[in-house]
């Protein structure tokens, strides 16, 4: 298993456009860099939103997003990384 990156970040937060309708759980994010649209559940939205504000380590995320359990957080980070929405901070 590869080591966890020390910190995650959103390379260009201004390239992410979020859309959410009141009363709905899911958010939509449009990545202007890739041209891709993604449907995000509340956990993924919270993580991406937090990282769009500032880079963070997994421990930081766990502390600030305590509604997401540890294994779910790992899965969310892996998904967002796979979608090209976040990356390890160089």
């Amino acid at each position, binding site marked *: 298993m590869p080591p966890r990156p020390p910190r995650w970040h959103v390379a260009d937060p201004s390239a992410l456009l979020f859309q959410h309708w009141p009363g709905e759980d899911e958010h*939509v994010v449009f990545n202007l860099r890739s041209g891709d*649209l993604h449907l995000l559940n509340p956990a993924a939205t919270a993580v991406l939103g937090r990282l769009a504000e500032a880079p963070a380590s997994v421990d930081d995320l766990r502390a600030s997003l305590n509604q997401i359990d540890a294994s779910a957080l790992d899965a969310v980070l892996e998904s967002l990384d796979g979608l090209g929405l976040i990356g390890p901070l160089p």
Partner: protein
Amino acid sequence: MTVGDLSDAELCGLLRAQRFTLRIGPFLVRLRSVMSEVQAALALLYRAHEIDTEADGAHFVIRLDHPGLVRRFFRAQAQLTFDLRQPFIPLPASMAAPMLEAGLNWCIGNYAHQFLVIHSATLERGGRALLMPAPPGSGKSTLCAALVTRGWRLLSDEFALVDPTTGILVPVPRPIALKEGSIDVIARWAPDAVFGPSVVNNEDETVAYMQPPARSVRDSGLTCRAGWIVVPQYVAGADATTTPMTRARALMHLADNSFNYNFHGRVGFDRLVAIADQAPSVTLRYSRLDEGVDAVDRLAQTGAP
């Protein structure tokens, strides 16, 4: 002047001389062909469309002819050429009409970037548009054909063309493509509907085209805005059931079926958001056409499934 105003000889002459320019909604399409199959398809299926014999330009210039002299006389085939390219393999001459329709779809889907292009049947009633974005095989065209025989105006059975800046939907009415069992279903549903010949395509499916209603073609200049989104899903044996979609899911569905929203960047995204915002969205599972049509009519009348 419409295609129906031309004699067979005039139509043949214009097609051979490359002076046949068809107006299909916002597009001028110049066609050249010597094939009798192409002439017959145009005379029947584009009867109400306007032509312009003096147009000095066109959005798309298409040639549909035999690929060579040998192929013309020995196992006659048809080859479509667009902008010096041949996007499809040659097919039997009997496939000329499906090839023309596939060629027009290819042109619009790949080049009409002045619009936000969504793969969707699109109809209008009371000044509002019904969008049915769905992949092939979902029953979209069957439901579309049934609805146009029950008072809905056809904008297209294949595309929603959206002005990305204003959100206005621009009609591009063309023949409605029906496959396999849907051909008989619609022939029974609307005995007065006019069909071109049934042919077997290169995927071994029987396909036939239904003539678009003349009123829809004449009213090609009447634009409208999105009013409803219905995602049809044909399920054999199923009772008609409508299920509301969240706006986020509707937005994703529009994007999944869009050819070029990302080409338009932020403007394309904002436009899809606006459509999802303004148009109530449902999924519609159905098997019996009358129930499917009733469900759509109910949605249009009450705004609720």
